[in-house]
């Protein structure tokens, strides 16, 4: 069964704190993604990775960074959290053997920055 696991479901952090969101997939997928979801704006791509140690910016990378040291793990880092980063964050993964592969999502991490 397909599984994408986000370690933290609910977090509350203070402005200026460094925040780590962790994601693990057990499907041996090459591609991993981080999206954020906000009411009325839909899902927006922050960063993605197509291989270990490789990363590409998505549509809204400002204020974020990522790390992929192992194939199964993809971390999203907020270097200095701000209130406008309060959101639901979704990790996803897919195979890379051709385009149009199904992307599977985790359960989401709700981040509140106060």
């Amino acid at each position, binding site marked *: 069964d397909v599984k*994408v696991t986000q370690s933290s479901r609910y977090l509350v952090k203070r402005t200026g704190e460094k925040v780590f969101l962790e994601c693990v997939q057990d499907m041996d997928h090459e*591609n991993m993604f981080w999206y954020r979801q906000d009411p009325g704006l839909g*899902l927006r791509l922050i960063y*993605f990775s197509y291989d270990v140690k490789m990363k590409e910016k998505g549509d809204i990378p400002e204020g974020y960074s990522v790390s992929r040291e192992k194939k199964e793990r993809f971390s999203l880092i907020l270097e200095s959290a701000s209130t406008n980063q309060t959101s639901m964050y979704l990790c996803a993964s897919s195979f890379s053997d051709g*385009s*149009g592969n*199904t992307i599977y999502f985790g*359960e*989401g991490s709700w981040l509140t920055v106060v």
Partner: protein
Amino acid sequence: EDQVTQSPEALRLQEGESSSLNCSYTVSGLRGLFWYRQDPGKGPEFLFTLYSAGEEKEKERLKATLTKKESFLHITAPKPEDSATYLCAVGSGGYNKLIFGAGTRLAVHP
């Protein structure tokens, strides 16, 4: 610019009342059109992928169809458990990047 628009934003149905959700798109080089279901507080759950105009896929009470400019998600005789937000996305460019619509919130009442 690649874009996905879903309508209506919200839909209220009585149990058994069939209807359709719309997803219109503009994309340079479609690499799959995806439908997901999302329950409150959870991640999107994959439903269908359609790749070419004329293609149709079915799952229980749901049927997805695709033309060159839009996709429909038909819901036949819905039940309250079908209540959720339905998301449409198109694959564009490489690396399986998806562009999402804002979703349609469906509420089915007994």
